[in-house]
């Protein structure tokens, strides 16, 4: 179980998280849902260690053992689909590349560069790269943006089978209803409901 207690995050005068507390179950997919700008991305960045909260604590996360899928793809235009995975996998695990591509339904695109991928394919590549990282918690910021719904639901089923917890942000009702746990948020600023 990952516990967040009384997290407060401010950017200048603007408070994004205000004494926010919540728990993430030790396994399965937990979906965060809420209006735009309510602090979901900030929350993921705090859990990933990219933002420091002004106060509060996070328990149950080993430092540097999270993997964050950013809200934007952040693909490297000069690397192929396959290279995006080998860049994050240790050499001893390069044999996993086909399975990782299959997870994101990108088989046959090994040698394609990001410029030749559609928006949805780019998103799936970013997701596959994130999941290739060894982590104790996957933080996925809108992993299915631009991905067609049937495919998103298939990939979500594979995420649910992972042995580590997944915390994802989504606005898609079908994805929310398929997740193991849903946390509805209000705000901004984000407070414990």
């Amino acid at each position: 179980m990952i516990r967040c207690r009384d997290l407060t995050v401010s950017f200048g005068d603007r408070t994004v998280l205000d004494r926010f507390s919540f728990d993430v179950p030790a396994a399965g997919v937990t979906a965060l849902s809420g209006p735009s700008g309510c602090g979901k991305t900030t929350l993921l960045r705090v859990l990933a260690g990219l933002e420091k909260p002004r106060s509060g604590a996070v328990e149950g996360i080993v430092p540097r053992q999270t993997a964050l899928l950013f809200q934007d793809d952040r693909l490297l235009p000069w690397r192929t689909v396959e290279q995006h995975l080998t860049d994050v996998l240790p050499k001893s695990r390069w044999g996993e590349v086909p399975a990782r591509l299959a997870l994101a339904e990108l088989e046959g695109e090994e040698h394609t560069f990001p410029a030749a991928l559609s928006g949805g394919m780019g998103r799936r590549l970013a997701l596959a790269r994130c999941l290739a990282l060894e982590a104790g918690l996957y933080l996925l910021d809108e992993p299915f943006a631009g991905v067609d719904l049937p495919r998103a639901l298939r990939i979500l089923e594979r995420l649910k089978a992972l042995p580590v917890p997944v915390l994802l942000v989504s606005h898609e009702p079908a994805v929310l209803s398929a997740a193991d746990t849903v946390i509805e948020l209000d705000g901004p600023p984000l407070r414990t409901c």
Partner: protein
Amino acid sequence: MGWAKPLKKLLYALPAPAFWLGVWQVCAFLVDRRLGGRGNELLLPYPASVWSALAAMAGTGEFWGAVLTSLGRIALGLGWGVTIGAVLAVLTCASPWADRLLSPAVRVVRAAPVASFILLVLLWTGRNRVPAVIAAMMVTPVVWDNLSRGIQAIDPRLLELARCYRFSRWKQVVLIYLPALRPYILTALTTATGLAWKSGVAAEVLCLPEPSLGQRIYYTKYYLDIPELFAWTAVTVALSMVLERLLRACVARWGRGWGR
């Protein structure tokens, strides 16, 4: 067809040089007519005269000695300039203190007249070292400027990704910095090669190291051998272009795996 592509390339590349050669021929003819056939070779020689001078020079060992020695000196200066410029760019981008300390010095070198440096370096070192030192001094600010702008323009989101995904420092350099800097490296090399030749040959003309292209150019002025002056200038331009093409091809080959 195997020959269709090279032929197309040749047909595409030929018209512009042919046009300027024609302009040169017409201008030389007009000068010839204006001077009534007297002294044409002193002002603007015909392309054929320059070609004859070049052919005569190319048959001598002195020509190749001068060409290869100048090429070696200027390539050495270019190499040093690129290395120092790259190190300075990394230092000034990594540390505000280094930037405050080094940037004014590099700007002074960039703004100061090359002739002043040539005379100073001539006093400080032997005349044979001046062309390489001057070429390096002129190239350094160009490489520093281009690479600094390139480093500052790297997408910070990619650097955040690299930190978040635990890329080692080496991996960050190879996967993010070098590919992102490639256009800046190409621009820097193109500008730097031309500048190295210009400043290096100017230093040779003023310092007369033996043997050298600049020394030969100086003698053409001394003996008013204008066709030979044109021929040596053409050789310098050709060498500069060949070196630039070679360096660009190396960078392109090096970056082939980057998918650009």
